[in-house]
């Protein structure tokens, strides 16, 4: 889509775009190309020597069981978090759309975790599951389970999944609710006249019509679990115990800033960029198709 | 005040599409010219070239003595009323009218005077503080007019200004626009696809089709002597009937193809046996007695409108025969299945070239 009428002028548009383009070049394009460049160099931590090593950094990375483990853990973490937060949000949204009274009130009480920083969300759950004084730890102990995410990798993973999902439900809920409210009532009524009960209507009419929203949310949730959850991991588990919660973004950070492995960290950055670009392209392909039809 | 001249005006879009193929016309001072044609005929493009919203590819447009091709819209001293009114939604009625004057640094008291005068003329005095969103369709239309009036321009440009209104309001606003234009005496260019609007408003019409001005003339002249089959079919409602025919060997009339009907017509300029397209307006077909009838139509659909009755039917002949619409007195009773004998005055038989559509004789 393009405007039919435009203003003339050569310098005005340049000035208008200058700030955005400058910041993009300095803080986005330049660092990204630096990452690309460093990913093919071997450099010591003090920058005294550098050597061009082609794709060695990548080869080392993919030969490193720690990195491959981290890949697997990230995949597990992302899919469980996405499934959990999408599922819960869908159930809540369908219920909130159903009730005649109180939709707005329920919405108010369900959406506010969106405003909580991931790191803060991590702290909230960290405290509830604190091995010595946590309320829920106490409850679990009462039920016969000794919770300790300091020592038990599974517990730690469960903790970051809970914290990440808790925060994301609100976002998904809002989109599902908006999607449900956008479905024309007449369609649902027509289905009811055609003899479909509430569950059948959901399965055959509402859920298919909601699929663009679901797809959009799926991509957003994966991106969220990949990147925005850094705060949760850093604040409550620092990747531990024994790397059990070292997801990819955390590893980029810890290898680069703590391990000072510049080439390795840059190579990981490049791989992550490829993941984001793939997800974005995938999403836009889909949106274009949706628009076309 | 000033007239408006088009000489050899053409529009070619960057993608190669040619919208206007060379218009030559002049609009007298104070005249209201209506540009009428089907959608896509280039009429809006022509108007927008006058406004300065589209570049002129070739030719020249003058307002008064001034060549305006290179001028910015604001410097052409024109005012435009848009189809969707294009009122600034966040400004009051007063501010909408005053905006252009403020941009031209008109003194504050002069702005107040002009807006007050326009508001009085258009009965908008009580609405000056409202926003466009709080107005009815007709009121918004008036504000759009007011915005044009306060600028006291050389030329008014109207781009289908009535097409967003309902039928009743459209008739009322049509009269108001005409009255206003006559009292202000401002040269006006008015674009519409509605031929009734065109006939009732215009001092002169420009009938456009496919980027070409098919005919320029006074409404009744265009109605009586359409220059082409397209103009003949476009102007007049219900539309003119077209029947393929050949000039009779006797040189006294035409024979409607496939039916054997013969019509008396002025065909002296045509060679015998020549194929022609006969145009008959529904209102010119008059009921006749059985033996004086030139045409007999078999009615298959009747629309009774009260004042008159439209009878649709075919001329029987070999095969289906050509379709024909007749306008009859409302008091006359016609039923489906009737055969109505008709006659038509030779003056009302229009002949066109079947190839290029041009009027013959």
């Amino acid at each position, binding site marked *: 889509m393009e*405007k039919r*009428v435009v*203003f003339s002028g050569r310098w*005005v*548009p*340049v000035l208008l*775009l200058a700030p*955005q383009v400058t910041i993009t070049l300095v803080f*986005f394009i330049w660092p990204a190309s*630096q990452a690309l460049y460093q990913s093919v160099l071997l450099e010591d931590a003090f920058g005294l020597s550098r050597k061009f090593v082609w794709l060695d950094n990548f080869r080392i990375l993919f030969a490193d069981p720690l990195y491959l483990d981290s890949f697997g853990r990230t995949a597990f973490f992302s899919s469980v978090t996405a499934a959990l937060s999408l599922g819960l949000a869908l159930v809540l949204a369908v*219920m909130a759309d159903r*009730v005649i009274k109180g939709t707005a009130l*329920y919405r108010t*009480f*369900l*959406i*506010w975790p*969106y*405003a*909580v*920083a991931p790191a803060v969300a991590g702290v*909230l*759950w*960290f*405290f*509830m599951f*604190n091995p*010595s*004084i946590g309320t829920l730890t106490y409850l679990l102990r009462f039920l016969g389970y000794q919770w300790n995410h300091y020592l038990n990798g599974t517990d730690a993973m469960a903790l970051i999944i809970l914290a990440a999902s*808790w925060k994301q439900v609100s*976002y998904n809920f*809002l*989109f599902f609710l908006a999607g449900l409210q956008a479905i024309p009532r007449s369609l*649902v009524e027509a289905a*009811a006249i055609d003899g479909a009960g*509430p569950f059948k209507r959901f399965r055959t009419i509402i859920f298919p019509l909601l699929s663009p*929203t679901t797809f959009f949310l799926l991509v957003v949730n994966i991106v969220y679990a990949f*990147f925005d959850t*850094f*705060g949760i991991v*850093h*604040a409550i588990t620092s990747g531990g115990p024994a790397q059990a919660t070292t997801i990819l*973004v955390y590893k*980029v*950070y810890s290898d680069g*800033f703590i391990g000072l492995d510049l080439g390795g960290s*840059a190579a990981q*950055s490049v791989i992550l960029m490829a993941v984001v670009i793939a997800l*974005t392209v995938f999403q836009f392909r889909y949106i274009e198709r949706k628009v076309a039809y | 005040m000033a007239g408006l001249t088009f000489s050899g005006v053409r529009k070619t879009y960057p993608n190669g599409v040619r919208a206007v193929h060379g218009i030559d016309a002049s609009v007298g001072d104070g005249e209201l010219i209506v540009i009428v044609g089907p959608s896509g005929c280039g009429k809006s493009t022509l108007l927008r070239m006058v406004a300065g*919203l589209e570049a002129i590819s070739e030719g020249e447009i003058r307002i008064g003595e001034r060549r305006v091709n290179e001028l910015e*819209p*604001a410097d052409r001293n024109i005012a*435009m009323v*848009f189809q*969707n*009114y*294009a009122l*600034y939604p*966040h400004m009051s009625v007063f501010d909408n009218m005053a905006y252009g004057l403020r941009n*031209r640094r008109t003194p504050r008291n002069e702005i107040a005077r002009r807006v007050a005068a326009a508001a009085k003329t258009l009965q908008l005095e009580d609405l000056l503080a409202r926003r466009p969103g709080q107005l009815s369709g007709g009121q918004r239309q008036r504000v759009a007019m007011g915005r044009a009036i306060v600028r006291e321009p050389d030329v008014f440009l109207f781009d289908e200004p009535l097409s967003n209104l309902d039928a009743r309001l459209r008739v009322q606003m049509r009269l108001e626009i005409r009255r206003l234009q006559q009292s202000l005496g401002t040269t006006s260019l008015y674009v519409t696809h509605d031929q009734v609007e065109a006939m009732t408003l215009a001092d002169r019409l420009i009938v456009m089709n496919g980027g070409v001005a098919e005919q320029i003339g006074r409404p009744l002249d265009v109605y009586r002597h359409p220059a082409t089959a397209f103009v003949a079919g476009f102007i007049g409602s219900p539309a003119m009937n077209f029947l393929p025919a050949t000039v009779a060997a006797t040189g006294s009339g035409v024979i409607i193809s496939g039916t054997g009907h013969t019509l008396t017509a002025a065909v002296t300029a045509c060679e015998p046996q020549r194929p022609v397209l006969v145009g008959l307006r529904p209102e010119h077909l008059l009921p006749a007695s059985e033996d004086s009838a030139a045409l007999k139509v078999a009615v298959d659909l009747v629309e009774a409108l009260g004042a008159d009755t439209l009878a649709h039917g075919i001329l029987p002949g070999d095969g289906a025969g050509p379709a024909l619409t007749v306008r009859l007195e409302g008091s006359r009773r016609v039923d489906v299945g009737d055969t109505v004998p008709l006659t038509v005055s030779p003056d009302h038989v229009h002949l066109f070239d079947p190839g290029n559509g041009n009027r013959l004789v």
Partner: protein
Amino acid sequence: MIERRPWLNVLSHFVLCAGVLVTALPIWITFVASTHPADSLMSGRAPLWPGAHLFENYATVLDSGLRAAGSVPVGMMMWNSLIMALMIAVGKIVISIIAAFGIVYFRFPLRRTCFWLIFVTLMLPVEVRILPTFGVVASLEMLNSYWGLSVPLIASATATFLFRQFFLTVPEELAEAARIDGAGPLKFLFDILLPLSRTNIAALFVILFIFGWNQYLWPLLVTTDESFYTIVVGIQRMLAVDDAEPAWHLIMATTMLAMLPPVLVVICMQRLFIKGLIEQEK
């Protein structure tokens, strides 16, 4: 709903109430913890009912902070967070509006290139390029400054696209009428386009304020000087005490304070917030 199924209604309300409770549980526990003295959180289990030290704990953190976080008063951290959030929100909105205006209402060489350049930033979250970005900011000597905290996060493809979409829906005739009325591009921007964009700007501001306030990784890297800590980073510093149980009652008070401004913004400006969020999908 269409047919009467009373038990389905009851079930719906039950599920929703359960959802609300689970959502609120962590906050309740945090709030309770922030109202108790230090010793009641030392062992056993955290209390379930508020204590009597509400004002005392909050006054302590706001005033003098915790030694673990460099004894910076939390009040100051909140101030830093506020400055950073406002700079990011306002900065993003301003540069996005003018960039979108340039792209939509002008034709110039390299227009498509600029468009794609901005588009690419959509694909590069700060998390994936932290090290080199940190390098750039360090070499520009922007570490430990409000500029360093905010400017690198200001370029935003999302906001630019939102405004572009919105400008494309503004009727063409409005720009034409403005041109005939003698308004140049900047006059059109300020007199017509910005007033029309008011709700969009407000909605985006809500979203971006929350985005800015909640930044974590970036402030963590660029602030080594405690006086530039934002509150979210401050909490992490308070937690990271070696070999000792953290001062939970004060940390929980700080946590409540860290959540308060963005949560209030979401609840008080719910309509704008939802509008701002949902429009990102389109």
